[in-house]
């Protein structure tokens, strides 16, 4: 099916999702730098936005995995990509509204897989690719970041044990300028590529690109990089307000090791083409840096709740993606269904945001949670 209005709608929806991805994940990138007072909040957010933009140009392996390794690119249609994006956005906004930690990346993959199953059945999903390139790395990466940060902080404390805390802390705060920058670069590299992969899938479905000769167009790279950078910049201000009054208890050495562990795992994963969740990796890194100092310093109950939310994300986003596809095709084939669903989704998102803003105005204490 070749439809210019529909491909424009799908690309706009994908870029909107990319913006929300940057908006959501700013906390992962800047929280540790701000909480240890290594960098002024405004500077941290600005640097993160710039490096997210730069990072998107480093590699295209994750985009290739998304576009060719999870669903059959030849069988995909524009309504499937659209339903997947709406499924991911709805799941993301729902978890944001209820304050649940969740992965934008897994929501996106789950949404597209669910919509594909609803449209073409399970035969169109490459389950080997989904398991080997998404699910297994998703389980391994937070554990890996936990182990790296835990080992690194234990050795670091041993090496710096006899130093006066003031100068040593200052040294690690300077180090966080680089570790935070590397993390922002890693985030731009891995996360912006997911949107590039989805837009490329849509272009394949619309006949603009051949499935046999996969290539991400330059305008897709630039627009995805811009959207995630703008989202990071916009999201940062909300994070600053929150962190301004509720600082995570973490010293500079822990912040440095958590960020370095997170950046190392995400950059290495991008190199081999694994679409990881920065949220999961950073949660693993921060928990590892805390556990490396003292096991009781970690809120294990909270870590358990996060693990449950992570397990739910893929199937829940898949269910929403499948439901969105069914609703889209029920309303009408061609362009009518997606446009009606887009209008409904936009109205729902705006009403949810207005409602949340009113709640925060009525009870400002909620903003700190």
């Amino acid at each position: 099916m070749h439809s210019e209005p529909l491909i424009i709608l799908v690309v706009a929806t994908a870029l909107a999702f990319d913006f929300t991805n940057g908006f959501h994940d700013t906390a992962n990138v800047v929280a540790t730098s701000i909480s240890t007072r290594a960098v002024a909040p405004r500077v941290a957010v600005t640097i993160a936005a710039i490096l997210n933009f730069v990072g998107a140009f480093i590699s295209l392996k994750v985009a290739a995995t998304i576009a060719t390794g999870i669903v059959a690119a030849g069988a995909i249609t524009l309504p499937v990509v659209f339903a997947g994006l709406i499924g991911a956005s709805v799941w993301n906004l729902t978890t944001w509204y209820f304050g649940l930690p969740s992965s934008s990346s897994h929501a996106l993959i789950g949404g597209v897989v669910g919509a594909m199953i609803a449209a073409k059945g399970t035969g169109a999903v490459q389950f080997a690719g989904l398991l080997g390139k998404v699910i297994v790395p998703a389980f391994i990466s937070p554990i890996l970041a936990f182990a790296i940060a835990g080992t690194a902080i234990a050795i670091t404390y041993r090496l710096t044990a006899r130093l006066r805390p003031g100068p040593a802390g200052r040294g690690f705060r300077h180090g966080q300028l680089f570790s935070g920058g590397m993390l922002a670069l890693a985030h731009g590299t891995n996360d912006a590529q997911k949107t590039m992969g989805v837009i490329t899938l849509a272009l394949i479905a619309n006949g603009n690109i051949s499935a046999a000769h996969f290539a991400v167009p330059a305008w897709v790279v630039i627009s995805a990089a811009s959207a995630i950078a703008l989202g990071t910049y916009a999201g940062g201000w909300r994070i600053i307000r929150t962190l301004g009054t509720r600082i995570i208890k973490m010293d500079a050495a822990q912040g440095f090791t958590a960020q370095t562990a997170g950046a190392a795992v995400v950059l290495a994963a991008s190199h081999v083409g694994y679409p990881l969740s920065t949220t999961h990796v950073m949660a693993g890194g921060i928990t590892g840096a805390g556990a490396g100092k003292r096991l009781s310093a970690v809120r294990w109950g909270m870590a358990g709740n996060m693990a449950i939310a992570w397990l739910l994300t893929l199937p829940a986003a898949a269910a929403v993606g499948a439901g969105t596809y069914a609703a889209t095709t029920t309303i009408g084939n061609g362009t009518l269904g997606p446009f009606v669903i887009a209008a409904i989704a936009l109205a729902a998102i705006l009403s949810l945001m207005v409602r949340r803003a009113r709640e925060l105005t009525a009870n400002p204490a909620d903003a700190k949670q």
Partner: protein
Amino acid sequence: MTLAATIIDAHALLQLLYASVIAGVGICVVYACAVVGVTRSNERRRAHDHRAATLYGALASVALAICVVAIVAGITIMATK
């Protein structure tokens, strides 16, 4: 075993494991050496022990240089392969 080997790209997974462990733990430990070097160098200089200050300064310089080279090399490998 064969099914797991078909689904999971062991080479890519091993690459992820060793690259992230070497980079993550390695950079943290080397940077900690740089912090030790800078801090001790300043302390020794204030104590007028210039020989020790120079040695600690050299440790800091080498450690920082290793960190910078590791970061640049990592980004270059990603961008070129």
